Each structure stands twice: as C-alpha cells, then as structure tokens.
C-alpha cells in the first residue's frame, strides 16, 4: 500500500514535472498577404504535376484555395517554354517532358492577377530505384520501410511520399431493407441484389501527410537502410482485410532538403523544451517584380521511383481490429419496424416464432452492415 502511494505520488510529480500540453489559440495577428504555394516536382521521365494554391488566414474555415487560370511553364535555358495544362482544382499537368539532363530549367508561373513568379534554374537529378519496400511486424503495429542506395554516391538527399489503399468489409451481407409505408409505418423488403455487395466490400484511400526526408550525407556510403515510410498502429482498420501502399521516392538537392527540413521543423517537430524557433521559409520561386514576395515551395527536377506492396490480414495475425456492433431485435409489426427507417440500424435476419412466423427482425448498427458508412467507396483499385 505504501509503495503504491509512493508510486502514485511519484507519477503525479513526474507527470507535472515533465510538462503537459494544452490547446492554445492566439488572437489573430494582422492580415498577412496571401502567398502563392507551389507544390510538385518536374519529372523528366513521367507525368509532371504542379499544384498551385494560396496560403490562407489562420482562422479561415476552408483548408485549401486553389489558384486557377494560371499559366504554368517549364522554361529551358534557351527560353523555350513547355506549358502545363490546367486540370482544375489548381492542378497543372503535362504527361511527358523531354528534358536534357545537362541543362537547367526554370518554372514560370503567371497568375490570373498578372503576378509573375519564376524559380531559380534547377538541374535535372536522377533518382535511384527503391531497392526494397517491405514491412515488419512490430509490437506497436506494422512498420513499412524502404532500402535504397546510389552506388555513385550522388543522391544523398531523399524524399518519400506514399498513397495507400485498403479494403473494408462489413460483418454480414445486407439482404434486407426497411421501406416506409403510409401512416408512419414500415415494412421489411429484400434488398436489391446489386446493392448488397456494395455494402459489403469497400475501399479507402489515403496519402502521406507528413514530410519524409532523409540525408545520407553523414554516412560513408549513399545507403538508405530500413527507413520508415509509414506505420500502421495495432488495431487499425487499414489491415482489417488487405492493405496496399505505393511509395514514391525522389532525389533532392541539398537546398531543397534544407528547405523541407525547415518546413518540417516549423510544422511537425514541435513541443519539446528545446524546439528550434519557427522561422520564415525562403524557397526558390519568387515574384519577378517584387523580390520580397516569395512563393512557398521548392521546385526540383527529379525522376520519381515507385514501388508497391500488399499486406494481407492473415500475414500480421493476430491483428486486433474489431468493429463495434450493437444488435437489436424489433417486433415484426409496421409500427415497430419504423425503427429501421432512420438507417442507423439495418435489418439483418428474421426471427421465427414457434409457429414459423416472423415474430421479430434482428438488426445491427449500420457501421457493421454498410461499409460505405465508414467512409469507404466502391471504386476497386485497378491493381487490387
């Protein structure tokens, strides 16, 4: 008992001691002029996608404001221009570029308001292939790792991003549905057989939301070993059935690496007692007429290497994912069956009485019967 008390006391002290965090919402500073945000990479051997957005005020309700109707061009040293096509939502794209690896190129953007931005000249970098993309079962979940190397020792700075897809399944096929009838009553009908599989199997997709960069500059060979690109914590629905991840690897210049590292420090690595102070970012794209107007983002030209792997649930067993379902039983009469009309619960099977009549309808909460309510969609990926 005394020991317990002591431990409790110590824990209280240590918890207080080691700091705690609480939400903080400062008053807004004066309005800051919205900056152009340029994200993307010029790919010399594939599709080049450049996204143009604008920075927002901190208290804006929207999360993204696309920059539309801009003219985006890749300029060679001889000033020949390749114009990217506007695909909507701020995406500007060109399927294939032919770039000379001995030359430098610049990105030029003219916004609809007439502001012209130009990047510093950038040379073409080659990205080594991903040697290995693999997963490791760990106590906290499943880690996904890459290995890569450059035998020429030229790459040194790497960046990764990923897209992930996973399958969702409901606990049971939904064969019945409730239909409203006049007089505020309901009855149970069979469900359209085309809808049943759509409710049973769904797919979800996601993409990386953090900056993942690594430098081998301090190592004696340009070797990336077991670098984590993603982590699926135990019990995550991502591994409830089957999971796939596509990892993209691209080479960075030292400057771009520094830029992204700073952005990462500013926005991801905070909350210790010895944080470096956040600071302004200076990218390589600036306004032609106003050198203080610097766009957010760092333009690079590098090929993109991709690799995909799949993970099945039975490969990582035991996996703790469990849907939390509640079962109900509703008396089979039109007044009571109204309970199924809201869609929160879905009729699952009839309950027969001693005479063989349906006395009740058993039902289950919709999250377990309709995977679409869990944010899934029915677009099966082509690679599935």
């Amino acid at each position, binding site marked *: 008992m005394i020991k317990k008390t002591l431990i409790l006391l110590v824990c209280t002290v240590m918890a207080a001691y080691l700091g705690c965090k609480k939400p903080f919402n400062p008053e807004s500073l004066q309005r800051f002029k919205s900056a152009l945000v340029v994200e993307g990479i010029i790919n010399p051997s594939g599709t080049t996608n450049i996204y143009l957005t604008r920075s927002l005020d901190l208290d804006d309700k929207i999360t993204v404001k696309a920059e539309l109707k801009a003219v985006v061009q890749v300029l060679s040293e001889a000033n020949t221009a390749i114009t990217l096509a506007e695909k909507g939502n701020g995406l500007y794209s060109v399927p294939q570029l032919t770039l000379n690896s001995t030359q430098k190129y610049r990105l030029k953007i003219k916004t609809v308001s007439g502001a012209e931005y130009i990047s510093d000249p950038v040379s073409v970098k080659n990205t080594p292939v991903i040697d290995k993309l693999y997963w490791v079962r760990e106590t906290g979940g499943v880690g996904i790792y890459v290995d890569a190397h450059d035998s020429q020792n030229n790459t040194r700075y790497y960046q990764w991003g990923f897209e992930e897809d996973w399958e969702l399944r409901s606990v049971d096929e939904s064969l019945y549905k409730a239909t409203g009838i006049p007089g505020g009553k309901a009855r149970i009908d069979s469900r359209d057989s085309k809808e049943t599989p759509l409710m049973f199997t769904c797919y979800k997709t996601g993409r990386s939301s953090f900056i993942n960069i690594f430098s081998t500059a301090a190592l*004696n060979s340009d070797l990336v070993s077991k670098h984590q690109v993603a982590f699926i914590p135990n019990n995550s629905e991502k591994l409830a059935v089957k999971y796939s991840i596509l990892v993209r690897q691209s080479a960075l210049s030292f400057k771009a690496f520094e830029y992204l590292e700073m952005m990462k420090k500013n926005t991801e690595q905070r909350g210790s007692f010895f944080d470096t102070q*956040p600071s302004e970012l200076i990218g390589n794209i600036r306004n032609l007429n106003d050198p203080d107007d610097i766009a957010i983002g760092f333009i690079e030209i590098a090929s993109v290497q991709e690799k995909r792997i799949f993970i099945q649930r039975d490969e990582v067993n035991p996996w703790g994912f469990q849907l939390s379902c509640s079962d109900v039983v509703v008396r089979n009469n039109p007044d009571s069956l109204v309970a199924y009309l809201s869609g929160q619960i879905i009729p699952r099977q009839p309950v027969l009485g001693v005479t063989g009549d349906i006395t009740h309808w058993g039902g289950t909460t919709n999250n377990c019967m309709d995977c679409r309510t869990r944010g899934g969609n029915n677009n099966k990926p082509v690679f599935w």
Partner: protein
Amino acid sequence: MRIIRTLLLLFSIVSSVTLYGQTLSVEFKDADVNQFVAEIEAKTDFQFFYAAADADSIKITLSLRSESLDQILRKAFLGTRIKYAIDHNKNIFLTKDQPIVATLPYGLFSSERDSMRYATQKEAEIMAQILVAGDPGSVTSTQENKLVEIGIKSGAFAPGNVSLAGYVRDAANGAPVIGAAVFTEAPRVNAYTDQFGYYSLSLPRGPHTLHIKALGIADTRRRLVLHSEGKLDVEIKTQVLSLREVVISAENSANVRNVQMGVEKLSIKAIKQVPVVFGEADVIRVMLTLPGVKSVGEAGNGFNVRGGAVDQNLILFDDLTIYNPSHFFGFFSAFNPDIVKDVELYKSSIPAKYGGRLSSVLDVNSRDGNTKKLSGIAGLGLLTSRLNVEGPLIKDRTSFIMGGRTTYSNWLLKLLPESSDYRDSKASFYDVNLRLSHKANAKNDFYLTGYISNDDSNLNSDTTYAYSNNNLSLKWKHIFNNKLTGVIVGGYSKYQYNTRSDANPVNAFRQGFDIGQLNLKTDFNYYLSPKHTLDFGMSSIQYKLNPGSFRPLGSESLVVTDVVDMEQAIESAAYIGDRFDLTSNLSLDLGVRYSIFNYLGPQSINSYVPGLPKSETNLLGVTSYNKGEVVKTYHGPEARLSARYQFSDDFSVKTGYNTLRQYIHMLTNTAGSSPTDIWKLSDPNIKPQYGDQFSFGLYKNLKSNTIETSVEVYYKRLKDYLDYKNGAKLTMNHDIETDVINTRGKAYGAEFLIKKITGKLNGWLGYTWSRTLLRMDDPTAAQSINNGDYYPSNFDKPHDVTLVSNYRFSHRVSMSLNTTYSTGRPITVPVGKYLYAGSLRALYSGRNQLRIPDYFRTDISMNIEGNHKIHQLTHSSWTVGIYNVTGRDNPYSTYFLSEKGVIKGYRLTVFGSAIPYVNYNIKF
C-alpha cells in the same frame, strides 16, 4: 571616569534584574538628577553611572512609600528621555534615549567565560601583548570589549597613519567571513574583507573602535589601540544568528555605502529559505527572484541579466568558469547548496578585475571546510540526495570539504506506468566538489578546488544528451605586507557534451563538443592611503575548443566521422582600479581594463567578398595558418567607472558607466538555451561582442538600516551580438559565419527594490520594468529578420514583480512565501496556413510578434528545525513545501502542429500543477 567605567561594563548588563526584594521610600521635589542619585546611593548599595550632561535638565518630583528600586526608577524618569538599566553588580546606568540593551547572558559562550574577571575588576586589562614589529604572529580577538593593543608601544602617539590588516573568521569553524565591512567611524575609514576574509585599513595611531558588519553575523566591534603597523584577526560568532535575527542580505548599510551599484549578494542561508521546485536549494533560481534577472522559462539553462543573453554571464565557481550551470535540462542548478557559501551577482558595475562577458558576473564561492572538527550534512529529497563531509586535516591550518549530490529519478521514471510517454526517459546526474584550504603561515594561504558535474539524460526520445563540467583550480594568497596582498590562481575548466543515438544501428552516431580553458590570473590589492585603494592584476586564458565531431557508434554504423577543426585562442587582460574617496561623502571607483584576444592557428579561414553576404557563393578563398600562428587579434580598452555621493548615513546616489568586450559566443536557436548549444570563439569572420551600460540609482535605508530601498535605472547597448539566420544549422557547421548575423541590441529598464533584512518577517519585494530589443543591422546579411526592425528578444518581459518573504514563528519554525508575476514572453506565431505535402501547415513570418499568457506563481515552504541543543550528536531539519500552490499552468512555450491535416496550436507547460515536496537534512 564614571562614563569610561560604564563603557567598560556594557557587556555585563542584564536589563531586568530582581532586586532581592529590597524596597525603600523616597521623597523628591524638583530635585535634579545629582540629588536623586546621591539619595539613592546613600540608602542602598547601588551605584549609578551616567553622563551628567545628559541629565542636567531633568527635575524629579516623586513621593513613594516602600517601593522597589525598579519602580522608583521607572516613575522618576517617566516621560523623560532618560533610560535606565540595572545589572547584577548593583550598578545602575542612566542613558539618554537609548537604553543600554541587554545582550545575551554573559558567559554563554565559552570564549567569554574567562573575561568574567573584567566585569568585577571594573578596569580594562590589556589582553593582547604588545607585538614587536615584524612578528609574524597576529592578535586574535574574539571578544568585543577587550582592549587590544597593537604594535610597539612608544609613549605618546606619533602623528600619521599606520596600516592594520588581518582576517575576519568564523569562531566556530575558522571559515573566512567574506565581504564583511570593517570600519571605524571617526575618522571614517572602511574596507571590506576579500574572499579570504582579509581586510586592510590605514588608520591614525591611537585608540579606535573597529566595527565589523557582515552577512550572517551580528554586528560586532573591537576596541584597539594602534601603536604601529600590526595585524588583528577577528573571530566572530555566527551561531548568534539562530538565536537572534535571520540576516538575509549583505552588510546592513552596504547598499548605501558601497560605491558599486547593481550588486546583489545572497548568503546560502537566504538562498535556502526560498522555496524551489523539489525543495533543492537552487542558486540560479533564487537569482531569478532579483530585479533585472530573468529567464525564458522553467526549462533551459542559465539566466538573462538586464537584457543580456545567457552566454553574456560569466559564472565563476571559486574562480573557475562554469559553462553550463544546470542539471537535467535546467531543472536543477549545478551548484551543491551545502558547499556554497554565498553568491554575488554583479549586474551593473562590474569590477575591473572581471571581464570577458557583457552582462554580468555571478560569483559563487564555496565554503572552507571546518578547521576545528569533523562534521557533515546529509540531505534527502524526492529526487536528489546529498552528502557533505568536512573537517580539519591539520587542526586550525588545513581543512577539507567534500560534497556529492546525485539523483535517483532514473529509478523513479522506471516506475511510471507503461502507457506513460516518459517511461523510457532517463535522468541521471551527479556533482562532486572538493575544496582543500591550507594556511601555510600567516602570510601564505593555499586553496585547491575541484569540481565535476555530469549529466546523462533523455526526455522521451532515442537521443541521449550527456554533458559535464570538469574544473580544477589552485589559488595562492600571499600577503606581502599590510598594504599589499596578492592572489594567484591557476585553473582548468572543461565543458563537454555529447549526444548519441543508437535507435537504428546503421545510422547510430555520437556527436560531441568540448571547450577547455586554462587560465592564470593574478590580482593585487594595494592600500595606498586612506583615500586610495588600488586593485590591479593580469589574466590570461587559453581556449581550446572542439566545435563538433560526429562519429559512428557501434560496428554496424555507416556514419562517416566528421570533425570541425579545432579552435585555439588566448585572451589576456590587464587592469587597474582605484577606489578613491574624494571626500567623506563622494567616492569614486575608477577602473580600466585592457583586453587582447589572439585567435591562433592551425586554422583555415574563409574569406568572402567584402560587402556581400557571407555565403558559399561569395567565397573568395581559404587561407591556411600554421600551428601557433596568430590568425587575428582583437583588442581594446574597457572602462569601469562608478561614483557614489552619500547625502547621509542612510541615503546615497550612485552612477556608473561600463564598457565590456566578449570574445566567446554561444550559438543557440532554441527559445531557452539548451545543453547542446555550442560555443564559438571570435575569428576573422566573427567579431567580438561589445556592450556598454549606463546606470543610475538612488539608495535609501530606513529604520536603522533594517529596510533597504533602491531604485536603479539603466540603459544598455549591445553590438555584434550573434543571432542565427532563419533555418540556421549551428552544430557540425564548418562555415558557421554563413549562418549567423551580427545583431544590435538595446535594453533599458528601471528596477525597484524594498528589502527587509532583519526581524521575524524578512524578505524582499522587487518590481522591474524593462525592455530588451534586438535588431539585425548587418548590411551584408542576405536576409533580414523582421525587415531589420527592432524586435523583442525571447526574454523580453516588460513587467516583473517578485516577492520573497520569510516569517519566523520561533527559532525552530519558519515559513517562506514566494510570489512572482511577469509579462508573458514573446513568441513567434503563425500568420497563416497553407496546404503542402498532404497537410495544412502553419505559415510563419516575423519573429517574436506575440506573447504567451502572463506568468504567475506562488510557492510556500516551511522549515522545521530540530532542537538547538548544542551537545547533540546530530541536528536534523525538515523542509516541506509546495511549488506553484495555485496550480496555475503557466505556458512555457507554444507550438503549432499539422495534425491529421489541420493546424493545431498548443501551449506547453513545464510545471502545470502544484508540486509538493519534502526534504530532510541531517547535520553531524
């Protein structure tokens, strides 16, 4: 004659004496005091002592029957200015205004017992023998009322001054009493004891009363007759303290009388009273309660004095430079409270003997070991424990003190539940002190100090931070003669840190930094005349600095060893200062220091296109220098001027102007200074920092110097202070000059302080209004921070109120209360947001444009001492307290994260709830 006898008998008086039941009847009508006295003396065997002049205007009309003498006296002098006192020997003393205050019962202290004789002899006896000039021995005086004769007696006193010098020591353990004021009132001649307890005065031949006032002791005095040059060592009792008042601050009237301003001195006793987190008395945290001293927050190393950066404080521990005064990320100070004797902070007038830093000098002095007997102290706290042992090696000549401190929080962290984020944290540190003091003879003293502090911690991460201070110094004090003393100190200080991570064997690394300094310093004190005291000396520091190494850890690691070139330099200085008493009211302290800095090879130095930013693109070339070759020399004079005009005994005005140079810089880009910040020497591309400060102050003491009040204002400028560029990489940077920018700073403020030194209730209340602003003014910098405008520094907290108080309920129980309020510190917050790499991110623009919420905290503690029986084997005491009683969660910092695609603001609190603590100390 009666008066002289009165004086001689002062110490034997007890105020309330029973008169053995004797009563008498008296009848007076308009009688004068002489008639009154004659009558009483005739009727009783009591004898009166008084100055006739004091009583000549008094008329007594009184008619009493069978009254006690006490009552008769009380009624006779009721409503007059005459006070009376009666002693054991049936003497009655009449005095004007001030009654003769009874001291402790006579003979309480063994040293006084033998002088009981004098009480009955009623004549002074010459206690000390006449000394022959040149006799190395000196007189030790332990009693207030012994008349001490010094020098060769030669009939009538010859005109002219002779010098008197000696040590002031603690009678209990022989420890020197530092900073004691030793003075005579007519003529007014004063001196302060130095760090060895040594003083020297120049006095006219003849009788004098020497007053001694010092920190932690009761005021005392010695009567002496000075025939010729001589020595007088004074032993004083400090135990008196626990039975009388608790003294919190420096000499009673020193703040008014000292020429220097902006000096704060605290004894370890005062420091131990201030409640601190976990109950471990903390020198640095108590400093933070003084006006003008601030820090960024509860985590982080060091402190900021009057707008100066952390690296602008010279922290000396027995003359050794301490580069990192903190343990465990700044939560504990690296000084063991049981070893420390006192702490002095110079924040305004920095004496010429100190140099090399711009803002302040924190001088931490350790104690000498007990020269009389072996003793020790052990302390147990929630997270740390300590043990100190001290004692004589050769009685009265050589002593040692050794102390150690360690933490067991590592073990406690393991007890945390598995779900806790901090279970894998590690916190271990220790420090060890050793000090040997040896008195070779009356003229030579030697001191050896060794100090090691070590930390090895991580906070919830796979990177471990380890750092250590290692220091050793040897000091020799030599007395050439009564007028000239000298000190030579040689020492070596080393600070190093390393961080290591072995989470991924392929990338496992160990990164290190170290700085070592070898220094030799001489300081001389020359008492030229009663009006002039000269200080002069020279110092030299050799720096060897390894700015960074990055090495593989373990056989699997592919990390390539990377080492930034070692740096070497020598910083030398010579100084002279004159404390000059122009008149009895006006004193000047004029000092000049000349410092010279040589940056030495081997080194390769980048040169850049002049007038353009120092960057890779503007690199002109690299020059190589051989070993020992002088790469660059910086030098210049520094002025240290202060003046005091004393309008009265308790009111003075002071002013000061200082210039300083600093050749070594700490580079940091975190809000609080972290243990992994690196130091950098000035080189051809990095100019020394330069600072100057003007200050002015008013000092007024109230209620017989028991309440001190002061107002100080200052204006300070900093030039070529090194700030980092946005996104700078400061570690393992081979071309650090490309990542830093010269910054100009200005700081100004007003500090108000009320201090009550004595009494049951003591403490201080301070209010500071101050600003600290920085501006990037380097025309060659590629990027300017906040468009080159002034912006507030991280520790700019304009308003600051601090109350430190202690109330003594009894001799055994006292209670302390601390309250502090300050404006929140500036922070950098986002001005907008943007979507990038799949997440909303915060957009930053200017530095330090907003503030965190204001800081407020109250702490209480209670000190309970065991009984004070002197012959007990051990004495124990308890300290219990609560840090942050109100539980307010004062934010330390704020940060903004992209979490699941949205920006979330957080505030981080270090101590967000009330933290109780208990500490047990045992003395043996």
